[in-house]
């Protein structure tokens, strides 16, 4: 028995060893770890891999650790001891072995920093970055590049990678630090990060999703401090060489940070004690508008995924670092997600689309917020070869562009209404100059707790309740966007009528059902677009008089689809979901539901994916 098992046992042991990540060995499944050293002038540099396997180097050359690692093992090259009078740093020093020798570990040595013993001196200056504006068609105009201040960013004076002192740039990019006089080889580093702790708190970081989430920073060259104060200005250049990017695109992370600065300052102005959840904004020159592996930049498009923001950056495809409205649009989703409520189901969208009411509001708000923060109604998004193409959305054009689609299902209408309520300009149907405060108040209070799905209806109803003196003017804005404000008497949009876009079977927006009552017939349709088009999801509201268990059934009555799904909500929170593949019907059973108002969502799964056309179901409670 032992002889028969032995080969298997050995094979198992081999497999276990191969997965342990620190073992050395030969054979075809083991790979070497190595790289190059530069800047070493004298003495001995000692490297380690994974805290062991010491390797001593005395000259600039390529190197290879003598222990090989199994495929799939992790490696981490670090400096055990620096050469005399030098300080060495490691880049590309960690990762996972992936069926190839690792040859790109780079060790760079420089003269070591020596803190002086002299009297403290002051180093101060201004930190700036290149901001590239847009042409009238939305492309980038590199010839009009200007220098803008880096505001609110962390500045550190470092000595051999240790922070000596740090500060934060002010609202015009100025900074000042005190360091020992007589210091040799000091570095000044500006992080693409804004952070504050305390009553008001935030931590916004611009990181590289294709470099393991490393934080971007701008670095000076090493300098000496003497006995006198110094002035040191640092500038992050765009990297544009006239006809292409030819050098480090150092400005990009700071352009993104700058857009976020404006975005969160707008909220702080409403509540000086706001505590913003930490947020990473991922940007890379490799970020391309293809879906796939985020670690190599295939991020699909600029987006907020509920936790982080991803921003496109690949030249000649679509770069968004200078598209401040795009960055702030995504930050607006972050704000809605954390401080208001976003029932938005996401998905592809644009002006002229006829959208799910939740999507229309969420995306319209994002567009409007970008214009509100910048006080610029023109949203510009550069794209294409040399970033010369793109498109613009003008919040003030009242949706006369693509398709003239107006209504509660139009993100264009939502952005137009919100911006017109905010801005100081009055024209046509816009007689309002409300500013941001009334809008903010509804977003973080009533909209956050609405019993309905978040939409223009839930928002406007509460806004009108809070601003009774502006009701007539609000209704005028709504009417210009094919929404009958005089009939907007609840959060559900009851009373809205058909128009050029919406036909009879799409109304009312919410049907009403009663427990034990007659079946309610609703139809899911992909007439406008799949997944998030208007009518893909249909809504039914009902009230429970007391705590009880409930069984909801949907049975097909007509149409080509055959896969209904049901989702039950209370105050926007998903209580239960039934999404089986049972043909032509679905049942949702929930126990111990408390008394109150609920919203049921029904959709045909086929209309969420490929589009199966109008399919109707009888829903009973």
């Amino acid at each position, binding site marked *: 028995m032992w002889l028969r098992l032995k080969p298997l046992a050995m094979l198992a042991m081999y497999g276990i060893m191969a997965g342990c990540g620190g073992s050395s060995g030969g054979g075809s499944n083991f790979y070497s770890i190595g790289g190059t050293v530069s800047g070493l002038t004298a003495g001995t540099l000692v490297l380690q891999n994974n805290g062991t396997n010491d390797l001593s180097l005395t000259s600039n050359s390529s190197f290879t650790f003598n222990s090989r690692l199994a495929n799939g093992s992790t490696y981490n090259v670090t400096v055990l001891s620096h050469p005399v009078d030098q300080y060495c740093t490691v880049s590309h020093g960690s990762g996972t072995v992936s069926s190839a020798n690792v040859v790109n570990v780079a060790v760079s040595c420089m003269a070591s920093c020596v803190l002086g013993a002299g009297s403290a001196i002051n180093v101060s200056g201004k930190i700036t970055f290149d901001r590239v504006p847009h042409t009238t068609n939305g492309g980038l105009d590199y010839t009009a590049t200007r220098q803008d201040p880096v505001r609110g960013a962390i500045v550190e004076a470092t000595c051999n990678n240790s922070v000596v002192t740090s500060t934060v740039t002010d609202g015009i990019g100025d900074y000042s630090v005190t360091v020992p006089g007589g210091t040799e080889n000091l570095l000044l580093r500006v992080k693409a990060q804004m952070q504050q702790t305390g009553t008001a708190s935030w931590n916004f970081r611009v990181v590289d999703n294709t470099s393991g989430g490393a934080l971007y920073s701008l670095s000076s060259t090493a300098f000496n401090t003497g006995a006198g104060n110094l002035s040191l200005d640092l500038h992050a250049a765009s990297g544009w060489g006239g006809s292409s990017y030819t050098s480090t695109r150092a400005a990009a992370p700071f352009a993104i940070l700058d857009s976020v600065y404006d975005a969160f300052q707008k909220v702080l102005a409403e509540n000086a004690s706001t505590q913003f959840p930490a947020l990473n904004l991922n940007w890379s020159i490799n970020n391309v508008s293809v879906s796939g592996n985020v670690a*190599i930049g295939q991020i699909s498009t600029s987006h907020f995924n509920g936790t982080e923001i991803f921003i496109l950056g690949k030249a000649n495809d679509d770069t968004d670092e200078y598209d401040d409205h795009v960055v702030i649009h995504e930050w607006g989703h972050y704000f809605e997600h954390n401080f208001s409520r976003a029932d938005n189901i996401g998905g592809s969208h644009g002006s*002229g689309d006829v959208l799910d009411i939740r999507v229309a509001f969420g995306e319209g708000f994002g567009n409007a917020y970008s214009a509100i923060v910048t006080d610029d109604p023109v949203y510009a998004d550069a794209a294409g070869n040399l970033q010369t193409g793109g498109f613009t959305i003008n919040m003030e054009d009242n949706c006369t*562009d693509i398709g003239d689609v107006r209504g509660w299902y139009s993100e264009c209408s939502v952005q137009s209404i919100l911006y017109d309520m905010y801005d100081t300009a009055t024209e046509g149907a816009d007689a309002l100059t409300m500013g941001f405060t009334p809008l903010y108040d509804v977003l973080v209070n009533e909209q956050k707790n609405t019993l309905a799905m978040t939409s223009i209806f839930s928002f406007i109803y509460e806004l009108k309740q809070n601003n009774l003196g502006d009701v007539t003017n609000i209704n005028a804005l709504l009417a210009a966007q094919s929404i009958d404000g005089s009939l907007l008497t609840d959060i559900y949009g009851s009373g809205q009528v058909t128009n050029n876009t919406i036909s009879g079977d799409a109304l009312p927006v919410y049907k009403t059902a009663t427990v034990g009552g007659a079946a309610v017939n609703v139809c899911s349709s992909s007439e406008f677009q799949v997944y998030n088009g208007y009518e893909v999801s249909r809504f039914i509201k009902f009230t429970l008089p007391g705590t009880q268990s409930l069984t909801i059934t949907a049975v097909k009555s007509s149409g080509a689809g055959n896969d209904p799904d049901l989702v039950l909500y209370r105050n926007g929170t998903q209580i239960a979901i039934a999404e089986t593949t049972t043909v032509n019907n679905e049942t949702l059973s929930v126990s111990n539901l408390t008394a109150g108002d609920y919203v049921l969502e029904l959709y045909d799964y086929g209309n969420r994916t490929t589009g199966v056309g109008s399919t109707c179901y009888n829903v009973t409670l």
Partner: protein
Amino acid sequence: MKKLNVFLMSLLILLAGCKETQTALPAQPAYSKPHAPVEMTFSQSAKASTGNDLSVEVVLTTTKDVDDLEVSVTADNNLLLLDYPHLRHLGAQHRQQTQVLKISCQPQQDGLYYLYVAATVVVKGQPQTRSFPIPVYVGEVNASQQLKATGVVEQDANGEAIISMPAQQNLRPAK
């Protein structure tokens, strides 16, 4: 479970770059930016290999009535474009009208490269451009090794990874 199946289906389709034919449906990111009213799918004739011509069929669909559709194609270095007028006017399009275009290219080296199809629609004189990169996986691909860096990745004293980008600087005695 249904959501996982759709995700897995999308992921499998999108990762099928190594197969001889592929048609990519756009995935559904969480909350994205708006885009121009045009969509694209594509398929390629065979697995791409260095030195051999590759044909990619592109299908563009306008989702609204537009007055004009203009298409341009560019490519990364190491993808040589063949026999394609790099700018093409396709005229007015109706909602859901499709245009099929064939792009020929020849990879010059193994690796991951992109064709860039820029579609510009014009409505009431206003152009709107949307870029559609098409990934072309040529031969043996180690995409992570091809990544371009924006600076030197180092570790600070706390072990946090930091990318150091060089600044333009002006150092002088303070006044």
